[in-house]
């Protein structure tokens, strides 16, 4: 896909995000479908896409639960969450933002934003890797999903990921600080 085409598509998705923050009902359902279709068109498989939606869906479910507790249950907010997530992540997949961010000059107003996005991308990859290793290690010790020790070990694994993430963040910050970047 040509760069101009990519940028035009990303702009259309950004417009979709703006629309999704105000729309409801069928328009929101349409935005969700367009977001999912954009991911698939950008080369993402349906199964990985659905997997990546699990935490967002859990968050949306928590929002519904909180709304229900406060007596204002509705479907708009969780749908909006899904739509904005799908459209914005699709826009990030389509735009070659990594190379653009890497080319920004320190004089540019977007320099800090570009560096921040690269930090986030790098740190997310580290976090995903740490989580994968921790949960693999847990699965070697606990071979039943439910039962004795499974929830304790799950809590332990989550805490370990959190601790490791903090330690890695500290070292990453120190390394950038030594290089004079931050």
């Amino acid at each position, binding site marked *: 896909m040509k760069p101009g085409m990519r940028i035009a598509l990303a702009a259309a998705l950004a417009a979709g995000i703006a629309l999704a923050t105000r729309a409801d009902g069928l328009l929101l359902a349409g935005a969700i479908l367009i977001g999912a279709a954009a991911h698939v068109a950008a080369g993402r498989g349906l199964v990985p896409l659905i997997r990546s939606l699990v935490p967002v869906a859990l968050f949306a479910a928590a929002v519904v639960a909180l709304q229900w507790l406060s007596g204002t249950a509705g479907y708009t907010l969780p749908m909006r969450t899904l739509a904005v997530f799908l459209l914005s992540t699709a826009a990030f997949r389509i735009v070659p933002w990594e190379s653009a961010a890497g080319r920004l000059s320190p004089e540019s107003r977007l320099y800090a934003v570009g560096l921040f996005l690269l930090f986030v991308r790098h740190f997310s990859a580290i976090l995903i890797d740490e989580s994968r290793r921790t949960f693999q290690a847990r699965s070697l010790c606990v071979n039943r999903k439910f039962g004795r020790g499974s929830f304790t070990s799950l809590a332990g694994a989550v805490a370990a990921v959190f601790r490791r993430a903090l330690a890695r963040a500290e070292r990453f910050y120190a390394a950038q*600080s*030594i*290089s004079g970047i931050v």
Partner: protein
Amino acid sequence: MEAVLELSGLRFGYGSDLVLEDVSFRVGRGESVGIVGANGAGKSTLLWCVAGLLRAKGNIRVFGEAPGSGTRGRVGMVFQNPEDQLFMPTLIQDLALPLINAGVSRDAAHRAAMERLREFGLESYAGRPATQLSLGQRKRAAIALALMRRPELLLLDEPTAELDGRGVRKLTETLAGIDTAKLIASHHLSFLRRVTTRALVLSAGRVIADGATETILADEALLERSGLV
């Protein structure tokens, strides 16, 4: 020999747990010094204090100054995990970034980065992200990155950790070609024998021996006492 680093009575602890206690030594210009010690002896903490990343009690002078923002450009550090240092979309961008950030033009920074990659035999990986390199290559790239601002003191934290034999050999050759003063924390004794001329033995946060690397590493009783063999 002019000192690039001087420490006297250095103390550092987390709460009431002292990690470093009364650490004193000096490193001369161009000198290559190994810090040996068992796991938890305080080697990494010592490097972090020298780099100004941790605030310790006592006296630390890096080029005659207290470590901090004034000494940052003159001190380079290679972390145990190169992923902590390399994060840009391509390797050449990783190496050019500290220069660009310091105000050097993009073209000049990229030229300098390419030259450094060539020096380290990594020029064919310039356009790739660091994640596509082997661990040994990433370690060498991290050293190349630390050298970009031409530091006068290079700190290396466990540079051989997780490296295979060939990786260690390549790293040894790379470090032998760098005439910057080096402080290398490691418990890889044969590696230190090849890349340092002097060694300090750290045990439970204290320097218990300081001398020629050959002499220190030949002292079986000392190595046994400090948990190295």
